[in-house]
């Protein structure tokens, strides 16, 4: 799959300072704090990005479904809860703490993190472990771009991630105090460096809605959706395999690798087929690695994927 990169550089996009000021001015004028806009003109700014060859031979999920049918338990466990409750999350200012086995650790502001990185649109399949799927036009870049900035040391074997934990803005955390918050996830380093692994800062031509993991999230399209951690605040390079939340919650049902695999059932349901969100009442067969086998199968040669689910 060849990558076509357009010639729009991130630096050519609206100067950061002016852009930040615009949001603050609007926020001040409308008293945005308590308001609940979903995808409205203030929360979703138009992004500039180039197109790529990452595409799927299927219909893109309707935007209203992708932005209102979500699993983001920090905002409630119902599918509609995140779109109803996530507006409370403040995503500006935002910082990501990069630490562990890296040359350049630190608390990076979002602007510093993204500076010099060009955005591109990638249409990926997205497959939830609950056996439903979407096709989403993400906007972002390869995770490896950030890892290069961090300067990964040779002793690092894994990348660990953590989601924001802010109970005052996340009603789901208050409702489910027994969950092992914060949400954590991880990838093997070679999985993280694979060009398919992306950091998304937008979708459908706009910046990410809060319920989809604003302001930046991971998208690993050949794994079940819960691996694509949202609203990232920490990236840590480690030697030992990191903990992952769903594995903590139900180790027999959710493993570290969680590759999309129609041949390995979830203990309580088959993974051979999937319901298409927004696509009616007919199911489709689930392809191995969610159809990305050509790009990633070599990461797992010799591995027993039944044991390493």
């Amino acid at each position, binding site marked *: 799959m060849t990558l076509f990169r357009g010639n729009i550089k991130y630096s050519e996009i609206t100067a950061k300072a002016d852009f930040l000021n615009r949001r603050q001015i609007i926020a001040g004028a409308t008293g945005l704090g308590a308001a609940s806009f979903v995808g409205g003109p203030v929360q979703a700014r138009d992004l500039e990005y180039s197109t790529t060859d990452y595409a799927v031979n299927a219909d893109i999920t309707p935007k209203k479904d992708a932005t209102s049918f979500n699993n983001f338990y920090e905002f409630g466990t119902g599918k509609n809860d995140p779109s109803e409750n996530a507006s409370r999350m403040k995503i500006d200012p935002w910082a990501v703490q990069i630490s562990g086995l890296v040359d350049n650790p630190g608390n990076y502001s979002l602007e510093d993190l993204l500076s010099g990185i060009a955005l591109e649109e990638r249409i990926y399949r997205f497959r939830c472990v609950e056996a439903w799927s979407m096709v989403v036009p993400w906007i972002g870049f390869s995770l490896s771009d950030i890892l290069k900035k961090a300067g990964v040391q040779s002793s690092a074997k894994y990348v660990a991630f953590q989601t924001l934990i802010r109970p005052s803005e996340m009603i789901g955390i208050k409702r489910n105090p027994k969950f092992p918050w914060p949400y954590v996830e991880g990838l093997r380093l070679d999985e993280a460096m694979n060009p398919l692994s992306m950091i998304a800062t937008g979708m459908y031509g706009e910046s990410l809605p809060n319920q989809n993991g604003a302001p930046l999230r991971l998208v690993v399209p050949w794994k079940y959706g819960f691996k694509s951690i949202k609203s990232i605040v920490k990236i840590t390079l480690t030697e030992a395999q990191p903990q992952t939340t769903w594995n903590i919650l139900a180790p027999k049902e959710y493993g570290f690798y969680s590759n999309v695999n129609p041949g390995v059932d979830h203990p*309580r349901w088959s993974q051979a087929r999937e319901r298409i969100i927004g696509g009616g009442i007919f199911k489709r067969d689930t392809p191995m690695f969610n159809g990305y086998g050509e790009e990633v199968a070599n990461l797992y040669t010799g591995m027993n994927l039944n044991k390493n689910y």
Partner: protein
Amino acid sequence: MGVAKVINSLMRKLPNWVVYIILVLPAVYLTFSLLGNQLGPDPIRTYQHKVGEFGLKLIIIGLFVTPLRDLININFFKFRRCIGLVAFLYVCLHFLSYLILDQSLNFNEVWKDIVKRPYITFGIMSAGIMFFLSLTSNNLSIKKLGPIYWKRLHQLVYLVSVGAVMHFLLLTKTWQIEPVIYSIILIGLLGYRALKACHKRILNKKSNIS
């Protein structure tokens, strides 16, 4: 007592066929919505969940008949057969959506599910018992079986209700509040009957002694 009397006289006047229609209407609406793809982004699950929950609600409502009559003198006994049969209708729709939309009529896969997945084992057990209870929900069966055996057979609804709640409890990814609420209500309803049976036995013992 006045309220109970008013309610009971209203119930006496309400014909059974009206209750049938009211209870079946949601099933008609949901099924047409499903076929017209009007049930939102995940129509299969939405339909299954809604008709399943209706069925469960009706099973639970049916179990309220006796306690309500005993404790507060409200009598909707005459609607219990209707409630039970319509509950079975919802369970059929629930099962058919699974068989047709989830499994595409692949009975091999269905059997694997029944054997491998406890929540489906519970579901099939409850649905299966309901099938026999529905077959015998008529006066002819009461006559043929005799009222004592018929009553004992239909006490299998207790097993049906437990199986249905277990089915609901086990199918969610994490502990959800809804199935837990149904469990609590069911424990109350069955607990009431257990206490009643104990009480009867104690009374019988006393009268035997004296």
